[in-house]
């Protein structure tokens, strides 16, 4: 049977979609409004982010978000008219997502 590799990308995209749907508004609320309003203390934040589990979570979240975005960007570009370049677009999108994830790992464990 000729198998499409799409289930891999799609499942990661979906996982990212679920996580973002559940927490993205809350995160933006916190980091975009509560942090500038100085309702979040540095010590507390630092304590959380230096925990090993939190570091892994940050990388995981970044990975899912970037793959989710890459997947959507790729398909939207194809849909709006770049169908002929579908292959290269996919490669570049997912590679960019991986590169950004690598950067996220540096940040999270930095």
């Amino acid at each position, binding site marked *: 049977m000729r198998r499409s590799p799409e289930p891999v990308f799609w499942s990661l995209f979906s996982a*990212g*979609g*679920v996580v*973002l*749907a*559940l*927490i*993205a*508004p*809350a*995160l*933006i*609320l*916190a*980091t*975009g*409004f*509560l*942090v*500038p309003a*100085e*309702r*979040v*203390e*540095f010590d*507390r*934040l*630092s304590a*959380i*982010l*230096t925990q090993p589990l939190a570091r892994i979570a*940050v990388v995981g*979240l*970044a990975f899912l*978000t*970037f793959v*989710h*975005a*890459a*997947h*959507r*960007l790729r*398909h*939207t570009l194809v*849909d*709006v*008219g770049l169908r002929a370049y579908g292959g290269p677009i996919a490669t570049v999108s997912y590679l960019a997502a991986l590169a*950004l994830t690598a*950067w*996220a790992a540096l*940040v*999270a464990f*930095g």
Partner: protein
Amino acid sequence: MASPYPRRRSRRWFIERWAYQRFVLRELSGVVLAAYMVLLLLLVSSVHAGGQAFADHVTTLRSPLMIAVHVILVLFALLHTVTWFQAVPKGLPLRRGEEKVPPALMIGANYVAMAGATVIIVAALVA
């Protein structure tokens, strides 16, 4: 023999109907969230860099531009959440015997979960 008129394709299809514009906005919301992820990582980076770096970062975040950016980000995040929850019962239709579990119920359950997650996140960060 006279031939049929070939099917027409439009390069601008995505702006020709509101339904399609909505679709493109929905897809873009995913990309916008990636941009937010970059901002979030910069924040994390500042935390790891120490108190002073964090304070500087907070100053940046207080600028009107950054506030405006976050307002837009929240709107896209909500768009993502709403459209995503709407799609959930499509892919995973649940049944109890003959009857379909009403999609509204499944969507509602998702919102409850989201509200829970929000409370936990905010509570964890704000003492």
